[in-house]
């Protein structure tokens, strides 16, 4: 499954790569001293640095700033909803709750889900991709068939249906509420690990042919050791870039699901369900739509810029000035 056009484009791209029409990607390998170079290149990338600063600010605001904002659940039912003002920077909603703090608390949930998804899907993707690329054979075939199948399913509707299952009983492991932030994190990770797996598989396939792998084998290193000590470190850059893309997608998918009512359920706030509340009041209380939406947009934008900065910093091919 895939939400964004990236996955299918990736597949079409992969096929046309085979057909020789597009240039194959070089696997950037990072030698020891090159981390410094990469770091330096990254720091020079002003847009990426700004994006990083913004994201740090965002995280701090949502977790630390939330302490200082008025309570998100405090209602003043006697007062009508009001627009942005000095006492309520983002205005108040129909129950006169402070919108800013609702956005910040929603941010805690949405960001937590997004980062959780990134970590989980990275772990899944790296393990499966590395195994498939290294051992090839039936494991690789299975993986490829599986990803082909996965892409054939319509993602958003399936996710919505799964979340609507509600709470499932895992026996000895307890119960899992699929609509909780943890549940959503799990589901999204299952959706999004594919791109990382594909990338790691590709890198492993080419890296296993390199001399240092043979060298390690001749001194008797085990396969696991080879994968962990030699193949994976050379993929770090690729993994990092893809992980940031996953964060961006996760935010978008989660907020979309929550917006539709098929994701994070109220009263747990999420940027998505904050916007859901605002549809009916679009005409009168525009601030309830604009501020949460803007926050989502800017955060995703920052993540995308960050990912680009990482990609540029780690690409050994020198970008050329016009």
């Amino acid at each position, binding site marked *: 499954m895939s939400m964004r056009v990236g996955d299918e484009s990736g597949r079409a791209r992969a096929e046309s790569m085979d057909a*020789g*029409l597009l240039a194959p990607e070089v696997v950037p390998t990072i030698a020891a001293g090159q981390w410094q170079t990469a770091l330096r290149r990254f720091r020079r990338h002003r847009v990426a640095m700004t994006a990083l600063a913004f994201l740090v600010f965002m995280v701090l605001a949502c977790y630390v700033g939330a302490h200082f904002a008025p309570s998100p659940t405090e209602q003043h039912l006697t007062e009508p909803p009001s627009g942005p003002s000095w006492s309520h920077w983002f205005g108040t909603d129909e129950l006169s709750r402070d919108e800013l703090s609702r956005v910040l608390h929603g941010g805690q949930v949405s960001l937590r889900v997004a980062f959780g998804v990134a970590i989980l899907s990275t772990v899944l993707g790296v393990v499966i991709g590395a195994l498939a690329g290294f051992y090839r054979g039936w494991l690789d075939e299975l993986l490829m068939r599986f990803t082909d199948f996965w892409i054939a399913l319509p993602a958003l509707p399936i996710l919505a249906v799964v979340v609507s299952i509600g709470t499932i009983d895992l026996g000895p492991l307890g119960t899992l509420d699929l609509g909780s932030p943890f549940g959503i994190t799990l589901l999204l990770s299952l959706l999004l690990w594919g791109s990382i797996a594909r990338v790691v598989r590709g890198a492993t396939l080419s890296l296993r042919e390199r001399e240092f792998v043979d060298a390690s084998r001749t001194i008797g290193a085990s396969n696991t050791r080879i994968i962990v000590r030699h193949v994976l470190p050379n993929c770090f850059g690729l993994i990092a870039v893809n992980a940031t893309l996953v964060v961006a997608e996760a935010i978008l998918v989660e907020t979309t699901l929550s917006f539709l009512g098929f994701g994070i359920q109220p009263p747990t706030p999420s940027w998505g369900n904050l916007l859901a509340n605002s549809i009916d009041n679009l005409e009168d209380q525009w601030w309830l739509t604009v501020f949460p939406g803007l926050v989502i947009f800017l955060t995703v934008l920052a993540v995308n810029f960050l990912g680009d900065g990482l990609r540029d910093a780690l690409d050994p091919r*020198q970008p*050329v*000035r*016009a």
Partner: protein
Amino acid sequence: MSSAPLLEVDSLRVEFKTDAGTVRAVDGVSLSLAPGERVAVVGESGSGKTVTALAVMGLLEPPGNITGGDVRLDGRSLPPLPDNEYRRIRGRDIAMVFQDPMSALNPAIRVGAQVAEAITVHDPSVSRAAARRRAVELLERVGIAAAAQRVRDYPHQLSGGMRQRVLLAMALANSPRVLIADEPTTALDVTTQAQILELLDSSRADLGLSVLLVTHDLGVVAGHADRVVVMYAGRIVEEGGVQQVFASPRHPYTRGLLASVPTANGRGSLTPIPGAPPDLSQVLVGCPFHPRCAFAEAQCLDAVPPLVELADGHCAACVRAREI
């Protein structure tokens, strides 16, 4: 033979601006091509020979730029020409054949159409049918059997040798006066190599072509060129008649090249030149070859050795040329 040179490259300098600095791919290269002459430009990868060829054709794309010198065809300076005028010269007065026949042909267009395009682009009055007929003739001329059927094939349906012939046909379509061949045989097997080179020679004889042969293969030079120009690190280090230079190479690099070629009888050892070519983004002090040179001395670091004429038409850029 003192006919006016057909093609002149005069102190050409080509630079590439990259993030790592400005790379001087070609630094002060001069050569000339007389009508009917075959000149081979020899050097390892990175010597600047292909860049020179591209500069002559006006095919340098940014970040590459001609930053000095001139290229003249019949005395007419080419670099200042706007692209829509330059293109009239390409494929008609000067033609070029590239190295890799697999990728040099458009995979989505039939071979005959690609050859016909070479004709119609320079003479729009030619009808499609006439261009198609001419394409068949050209394919026959370059030795492709069953040309009338082959014309409708796609590049992937032809062998490497046949594709190279097609490229040659395209280049010769408008009877150019200069043909630049960039490593025309590197991607081919030995038998096909010989065939293509013969084709080049016979075409030259038929059409009175001048040929600029860019290669790193000295065997090709020996059999198919009149003069040879040896390039290293973007400069010419030796030039002269092929017999002259092969019999008594005057530059240590040329000697190294000749010594590292396996001889036909299999005797003698392969002595490769130690070291690697210099990094052209750095400014070079003294002779660019001196780090690898067996004859290097203190004076080699003073300045870049100029190209000095040693015998009739035989020049070398080495301060110790006469002694070696």
